Structures are given as structure tokens and as C-alpha cells.
């Protein structure tokens, strides 16, 4: 018996559908915005979305790693605030050299993530609770350091805050760093053992363990990565808003989780892409831009639109999951 090859219509792989849907939504929003508002189709508008959300993008990349393994990290917003605080204090009050300040901030973020990962793995406490305690801890250290805002006046920060001009277009260093982080993270997830282990642990931790994969090491690694990304996000935050403040980035963990979900990553773990997360962050940024352009809408519409979008995307994921033969 021979099978006759049937010409099949091109159809996207099912695991790509959520990401493609986000991409379609972005295109739709951009198209409608360009039609409705004068000056919306200026490429600078897109770049501004990147400039305003570079730090969120970096934090969301770390969160993607954690969610891929089926965990969650509620501490990211607090770690961002802690990093801004540490940076400001070490620079302005302790007068450390710039590279040391940045390294110290990153080290503290990574150490916090490592610690939470260890507690989650060794003592078998739910990630939700451990990272919640981590959230209180990081925010608490912030308040303990100072309750007032500490401005950063270092020339390096002034330089990093300035935009780079390419012709008529402007970007900041933060955007370039964030894009680099996305690319590196995508490569790590696609081509390294750590990336494959993360997907495997998220898909089914028990099978991963039986296959001899280092489940514990992977878990600890993703929380460390998330802590590191949050700290880097905190550093980028100080470039964007040069001050250390314990009230920075309150509620950012929700924005970030929403971006990851809209980007098509399943919260049960095992499925998702960093590219999707990047699109999710862009979608949230574009909503903000549209609401600014509209002018008459109040800020609380942002929250409601994000809520509705979340609903639509989750419904979409649900439909895809229902169609998939089990």
C-alpha cells in the first residue's frame, strides 16, 4: 500500500497559535490606531513603547522561565524596588564605583532568587507562598533602608538615560539591553540543556525526575534567573527614572504575569516562548499608548482593558487545549 501524498493547506502548529494570536492582535491594534489617530504610524511610537517598557520586558523574561517550570514568582516587583534602592544608596551615600554598584544589585537579586528556589525545592513549600514571603522581605528591606526617595545624580546614569539617535529615531540603551536579554533567553530556552530541562520540568515534573533530569537544579536555576532579571530590570528602571524609592514598581508582578499569559505561556508550565512574552509586553504598552492618544479615557480604563484582554486570551488558550487530542 502506498499513501498518496495529499497537498495540505499550511496550518500553524498548535503550540504557536497563542503567540500568533498575540501578534495578530498587536497588528490589529496598531492598524486601528494608525487609522484613528494622526501621527500614530510614526515608527517612533513603537520605539517609545519599548523605551517605556524596557524594564518590564526584562523582568517578564525572567518570569517566563519560572512559569515555564510551572512555578510563579510574586517577588519580582519588590526586587526591582530593592535594586533601585540599593543602587541609589550605594552610589549617592556609599560612593561605590559604578560597575561595583551594578554588580552588587544584580548579585543581591540573584541571591534572593537562589534562596527562594532553595526553600521551594528543599523544603517543598509552594512557590506562591515562598515568593510571597520574598516579596514582603524585599519590600521590607527597602523600607528599612529608607522611606524617602533618593535621587541618583551620577553622570553615568544621566548618560544612560539619554536617548541614542538613529536619524530621526530615538532609542535608549535600556531598549538595546532588553532586546539582548530577550534574544539570549530565547537561545537559552531553545538550544541549551537548561532550556529543555525547564520545559520538561514544567510539562511533568515526575516524568522529568524519572528521566533523570536534574529537577531540583532546574527549579533553583529558574528562580535565580528570575531574581537576576528582576535586578537587571531594577537597574534599567533607574536609568528610566533616576531615583531609588521603596514605592517603585508596586504591583508590577501582576503586569508581568499578565504579559506572560497574554504572550501565550501556559501557567501550568511546559508551553510558551520568550517571543510571546515580548509580544505580550508590547501589547500592554500599546494599550497604554492608545489610551493616551484617545485622551478622553481615564486611566482606570487601562486596567479594565487589560482584564478583558486577559480573559480573551485565556479563553483562546482554553479552546486550543480543548481541541487538542489527549
Amino acid at each position, binding site marked *: 500500500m502506498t499513501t498518496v501524498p495529499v497537498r495540505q493547506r499550511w496550518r500553524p502548529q498548535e503550540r504557536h497559535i497563542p503567540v500568533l494570536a498575540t501578534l495578530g492582535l498587536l497588528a490589529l491594534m496598531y492598524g486601528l490606531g494608525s487609522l484613528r489617530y494622526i501621527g500614530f504610524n510614526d515608527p517612533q511610537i513603537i520605539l517609545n513603547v519599548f523605551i517605556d517598557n524596557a524594564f518590564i520586558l526584562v523582568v517578564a523574561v525572567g518570569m517566563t522561565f519560572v512559569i515555564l517550570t510551572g512555578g510563579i514568582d510574586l517577588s519580582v516587583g519588590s526586587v526591582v524596588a530593592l535594586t533601585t534602592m540599593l543602587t541609589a544608596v550605594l552610589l549617592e551615600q556609599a560612593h561605590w564605583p559604578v560597575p561595583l554598584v551594578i554588580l552588587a544589585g544584580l548579585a543581591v537579586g540573584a541571591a534572593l532568587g537562589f534562596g527562594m528556589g532553595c526553600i521551594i525545592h528543599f523544603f517543598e513549600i509552594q512557590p*506562591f507562598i515562598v515568593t510571597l514571603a520574598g516579596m514582603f522581605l524585599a519590600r*521590607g528591606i527597602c*523600607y528599612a533602608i529608607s*522611606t524617602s526617595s533618593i535621587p541618583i545624580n551620577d553622570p553615568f546614569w544621566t548618560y544612560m538615560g539619554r536617548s541614542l539617535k538613529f536619524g530621526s529615531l530615538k532609542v535608549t540603551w535600556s531598549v538595546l539591553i532588553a532586546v539582548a536579554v530577550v534574544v539570549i533567553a530565547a537561545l537559552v530556552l531553545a538550544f541549551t540543556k537548561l532550556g529543555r530541562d525547564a520545559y520538561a520540568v514544567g510539562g511533568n515534573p515526575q516524568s522529568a525526575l524519572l528521566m533523570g533530569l536534574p529537577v531540583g537544579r532546574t527549579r533553583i536555576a529558574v528562580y535565580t534567573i528570575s531574581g537576576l532579571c528582576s535586578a537587571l530590570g531594577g537597574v534599567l528602571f533607574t536609568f528610566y527614572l533616576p531615583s531609588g524609592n521603596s514605592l517603585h514598581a508596586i504591583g508590577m508582578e501582576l503586569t508581568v504575569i*499578565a504579559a506572560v499569559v497574554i504572550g501565550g505561556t501556559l501557567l501550568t508550565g511546559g508551553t510558551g516562548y520568550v517571543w510571546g512574552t515580548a509580544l505580550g509586553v508590547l501589547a500592554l504598552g500599546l494599550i497604554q499608548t492608545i489610551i493616551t492618544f484617545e485622551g478622553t479615557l481615564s486611566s482606570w480604563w*487601562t486596567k479594565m482593558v487589560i*482584564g478583558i484582554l486577559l480573559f480573551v486570551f485565556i479563553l483562546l488558550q*482554553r479552546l486550543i487545549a480543548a481541541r487538542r487530542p489527549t
Partner: protein
Amino acid sequence: MTRLATAARTAATHRLFWPALVLAVLVLGNVAFTPNFLHIEVRAGHLYGSLIDILRLGAPLVVVSLGMTVVIATRGIDLSVGSTIAISGALACLVISDQGDQNSVGGVLVAVGLALALSLVLGLWNGFLVAGIGIQPIIATLILMVGGRGIAQLITDGQIITVNSDPYELIGGGYLATLPFSVLVAVVMIAVTAVLARRTALGVLIEATGGNAEASRLAGIRARGIMVMVYLFCGLCAGIAGLMISSNVHSADGNNAGLWYELDAILAVVIGGTSLGGGRFSLGGTVLGALIIQALSTTVYTVGIPPETTMLFKAVVVTIVCLIQSPAFRAKVFGRRPRSTPATPSEPAKIEVPA
């Protein structure tokens, strides 16, 4: 082994032992700093004292945590309680402020009824998403958590609505028969929940649903109906707490009312010994957990810890309580094996059965 030691050992294995011990240590620690901490007196026909304050300020959290407990028992979670608190308070204050006579009891009752009805609708929405569509609870309720703040601000039009209504003030700040009214409401809610959960089959059904939703459905339990019901109840509890909070401060703030309440409520449930994995739940533990959290805040003020470090303090206590409760931690640190195998049911072995 003396009889006392045996009794102590039995007590230590009771699941309310650790939360109760932590609460006792917190209260006794306060006595060391402020000797008249335990003192309760009657002043102007009302009970006064630090302990009463803990109960009165902790009442909304106790009520929210009750709802959260039954939701968590079905292996769910409700992140939207903070937003529901804001929405319920906002609607009640809006209705009252629109009335000519803010002191009319009928008007206040209408406002309270509307706010509670809306909370039930929000709970129904969560239940529909979780049980009807089958979305993971943490995500399903995240939608309302994010969107709900927007709804609350839409109701208050971004302003803080202030009301001057004596009947409304009773709910959160008033006294009835020398006792704070909010404490009475909390006690009634605890009693109703306990009777429904422990004197009827409802509690068993909820635990069965949380243990294994599919198995309980096959056993003839309408798991979906149970799940919708617990989210409804959680919405109602959050609505009541919203009324208490807004009534205590005579105003509704769409932005800040009930902020982080979901986290406190989840903490209270976990400290009380209910596992986030679903199944068994402990209402008594939850009440103790909520009181521990409130006592923590009070301690920070009475002991004179700078308020800036409240969060640090909270983080340390939460970590300690969770570590103590983790069997893995006890086995590793105290070198004790988990007591007996039946006490800690291992992961149910998943065996593929060819159909």
C-alpha cells in the same frame, strides 16, 4: 513517660497547635512590652483594650479568609477578593451618598443589599470561569483582580466618596451590646460557615472536590456546582469585608481599599494549616491565622518597631511559620522522619489503565 508529657505530645500533634502557639507568643510578647496589654475595660458602654482592637480590626480579614479557606479547599485560589472589597465598598458608598437623607436605615439597607448582590455576581463570574470554562483559578481570578480595580474606580469616578451615615458606620465602627459590631458579624459568619461545613455533608463534599475533582464527579458529587458555590461564598465574604472597611473609614477609595488583602487572606489560610494543594481545610486554623496577621500589625505598633520594618517582620514570621509546618523541613532540620506513612499521603500513583 509522665502523663503530662503524653498530653503535651498529643497537643503538639494537633493541627491547631502551631498557629495557637504563635498567636500566644505574639500576645505574651506584647505583655512584656506593655504590661496592660491584656487589660480590657468597659468605657462609655463599650469594651476597650488592645485585645478588642485586634479582634475589631481583624474582623474583615477573618471574614475574607473564611471565604478563601473553602476556595482553597477545592484546590482553587481567589486573587480577586481585594478588588471585590473595593467594588462593594464603592457601590455602597455611592448609593448612600446619592440619597437625600444619608441616615435613613432603609436607604443604608438598600445600599448594603446592592453591594452584596454585586459581590455575589462577581463571585459567580469567578465560579463560571473556573468551573464552567475550566480556567486555572489563579488566572481566572487574576482577570477580576486587575479589571476589578478599574471597575471600582469607574464606580467612584476616580474620587474618594465620603459618607456621613450613622447606620452605615455601625457595620465597621459601631458597637452593639458593648461589643464591636464587626466582631459580631465575623462571629456569625464563622458560626454559619462552621455549621454548614461541619454539621452538613457540604464540608465533606468540598474536601472531596479539592482532593480529586474528577474522582468526586465520578462518585456522584456535582463538583462543578460545589466549585461555583465556593466562589460565590468567597465573593460574598469579600463583599461583607468591603462594607466593614469602607464603613470604618466613612469612605470608599477604589484605588486603595482592600489593597493586598488577597495576599493576607491566603497567608492566613496557609498559616492556619490548610494546604494550597486542596482537600482538608481547617476553619479554626484560618481564624487563628487571620488573628496572627492582625496581631502582628498591632505588635509592630505597641512594641515600637519602626512601622517601616513591618513588612520585614511579616516576611520573617511567615517564613518561620511555613518552615515549621513543612514536613520536609522538620525531617531535614530536626532529623525526624515524617511521623508515619499514612499521616502524610504520598503523591497518588498515576497508573495508566488501558481502556
